[in-house]
């Protein structure tokens, strides 16, 4: 993607390696929704101590220190109270990260760091939306450059069809991809990142990268947390916190 095209994209990073499987650096995506608030997937931060995390904003290349990046520690992790996993599928897969202010402020809006809008309504099925992240690619390796792709919103009925996910989706989820010719999809390492849809030249966070059967498979599109189901939860949790 081009630098600044997804200025709300966040990279969740471990400050240090905890073991061979929990290595230092990027492990999940996130989305900046307010100066001090990043939305991500609950499964990304399960049993994670906020002190071990940092959030990078304005990043394009994970391997470089970039002059437009803004790094923050995490003050608090708020996981959805009804997050659960059944048959390895995450339900209500949403969490908020409260950033720790630096010099009295959190994210400073620039061309490369900007919050996304939260949706006020429903986008119809078949709408073209956008995914982005540093997750695994078709080479089996993750990318140090931020990548993006276009996907279509898929109806719940089609996605729950026997040939697809066979009723494993509930209303907290939505599907996006391309059932006929699967090419673009999110994958491991993209979790927590944004699925945005545009209206009147503004981008709205419509989904959070959550899960899927492998990646890029025919009939198995990406499954995203349906953000519109959690708008009240997001507002309430942010309002409950002192500024």
């Amino acid at each position, binding site marked *: 993607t081009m630098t600044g095209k997804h200025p709300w994209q966040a990279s969740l990073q471990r400050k240090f390696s905890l073991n061979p499987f929990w290595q230092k650096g990027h492990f999940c995506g996130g989305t900046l929704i307010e100066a001090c608030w990043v939305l991500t997937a609950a499964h990304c931060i399960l*049993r994670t101590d906020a002190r071990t995390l940092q959030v990078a904003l304005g990043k394009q290349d994970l391997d470089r220190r970039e*002059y437009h990046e803004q790094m923050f520690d995490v003050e608090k992790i708020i996981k959805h109270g009804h997050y659960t996993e059944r048959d390895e599928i995450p339900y209500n897969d949403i969490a908020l990260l409260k950033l720790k202010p630096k010099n009295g402020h959190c994210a400073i*809006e620039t061309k490369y760091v900007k919050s996304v809008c939260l949706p006020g309504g429903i986008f119809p099925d078949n709408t073209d939306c956008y995914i982005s992240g540093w997750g695994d690619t078709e080479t089996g390796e993750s990318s140090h450059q931020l990548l993006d792709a276009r996907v279509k919103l898929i109806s719940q009925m089609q996605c729950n069809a026997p040939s697809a996910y066979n009723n494993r989706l509930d209303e907290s989820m939505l599907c996006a991809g391309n059932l006929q010719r699967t090419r673009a999809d999110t994958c491991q390492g993209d979790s927590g990142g944004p699925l945005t849809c545009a209206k009147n030249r*503004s981008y709205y966070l419509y989904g959070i990268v959550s899960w899927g059967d492998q990646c890029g498979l025919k009939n198995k599109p990406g499954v995203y947390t349906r953000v519109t189901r959690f708008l009240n939860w997001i507002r309430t949790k942010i309002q409950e916190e002192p500024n």
Partner: protein
Amino acid sequence: EHLTGTSTDSADDYYYEYGTEYAEAAQNDHGLDFDATDPDWFHEYLDYDENPCDTKPCQNNGSCERNRKSYTCHCPKPYTGSKCEKVQNTCKRINCHRGDCLVTVRAPYYRCSCRHPYKASFCDKAQSACQPNPCKNGGTCQRHRIRSKFSCKCPETFKGRFCEIGTEDCFKENGLTYRGNVSQTILHKTCLHWNSHLLLESNYNSFMEDADDHGLGDHNFCRNPDGDERPWCFVTTSNKLKWDFCDVSPCPASEFSKNTIMSTKSPTVDNIPRTCGKPETRSPIKR
């Protein structure tokens, strides 16, 4: 990333369970608790067996001293911070009366940049505004009623406060590579030096990473370090730090939008306009 917490006998699950368990307990040097029964491999990972100085963590020619598992950076002035990544405000106690205090990398690590016709180390003495003639390229100096005021009347092909800007001083495309000498904004405000102490908190100053590549240094010439639509610089208006596009012309063959915007480049949170969801990238580039 899917941590089920359920146990099966596969190798992956075994390690994932270790992962979650130790993530909670992982509290060593980083101010967190620590379990003495952790397996050896875990300690190895946390102990950073290698010399932490090997990764050259100290920036700006800071020297690294190993300190058991950690390190200490000894920073050359004016750099500071745990990795010498910050710049100390050496202007804190300096009063550059009619000028701006700049942070420099040589002793005494500051210098005053005086507004003409003020001079001397701290810009507190004025010389005659038009003697000697400060106007370049044949410009004539005109005195005003106030002793310190002056203006240069420039020959047609020159402009700038001192007629120092010729027609060849122009920018191509969006001015990313502009290295000319224009130092005034479209509203004719004089640009701040990129090493002004006022810019130390800004993302863009002569101490930022790759400052040389962006043409930033100990000067106040307009530049475009962030790929904006044309060269710009910081100015102060009513004691507030602002930025504005510069009064620099595009080179004859190039085109750009003539829009002018006055806004805060490195704003405080209070005056950030709410522009959620609107990226500012330009149209796709033709391949």
